[in-house]
């Protein structure tokens, strides 16, 4: 179930993403942790998205549905939001 969700989500993301978002390079030194979760998606793209997150730990302690929602939400965008983007009263120029 998890593999299906992640594969589906990533495929959807890659299709709709702009060209600057896609980094389809796959490297051989992908962490074992990621490979255990989903060998198909064990690439640079996947690694960059979830680096620093102990997915196996979260998978163990979270409810399954929570985990699916969590990994589907975090790190999907690559836009470089800045602090000023949160300002309600944004400068005109």
């Amino acid at each position, binding site marked *: 179930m998890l593999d299906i969700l992640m594969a589906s989500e990533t495929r959807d993301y890659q299709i*709709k993403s*702009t060209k*600057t978002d896609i980094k389809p390079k796959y490297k051989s030194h992908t962490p074992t942790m990621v490979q255990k979760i989903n060998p198909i998606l064990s690439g640079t793209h996947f690694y*960059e*998205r979830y*680096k*620093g*997150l102990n997915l196996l730990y*979260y998978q163990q*302690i*979270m*409810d399954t*549905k*929570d*985990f699916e*929602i*969590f990994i*589907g*939400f*975090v*790190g*999907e*965008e*690559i*836009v*470089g*939001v*800045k*602090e000023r*983007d*949160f300002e*309600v*009263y*944004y*400068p*005109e*120029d």
Partner: protein
Amino acid sequence: MAVAIVNYTPGIIFVNSVYLDTNILVSARDRKSQRYNSAALLLGDLFSNEVDLFITNLVIDEYIWALLRAYYRRDNRKELNQHIIKANPQVLLQYHWRIASGVKKILKFRRLTLASNLVPSKEIVVKAVNLMRTQLLSPRDAFHLAFIMKLNIDGIVTSDGDFDNLQIRRKNLTIYKY
């Protein structure tokens, strides 16, 4: 009763209910943001601790604006402003599906309450205007705090310092900074 500021560290124990400031949602979603890692870790801890999460329409509005500005800047190498949108409203459509996708995923969070309708609007307005004076908050932050107080939410998660100097005597509020 007082306001407590807690710097987030992984594995921290949370209060039962927290209000999510916009910045954690955006930062956890954007892996190129400066706070991505801490925001994502924090969100993971909120999920795993099964904390009740609250937002309002204001948070969604701010989430949309933050990402719109970032998308536009990335693609056009200049800042998005009201003049650009008024001159060419089609700009909004360019990024709509991505915005909508993100919002949809937020609304799927379990234990998330979109609290805008839980308190009569008139009460929120009166409270917010009062908080602007007593807490020296900007209008928008005063509205966030008005919801927090009216709904008796235990904490707020945020990266900015807008709520650091609150002087609230009638309620315990924990501010989680990341």
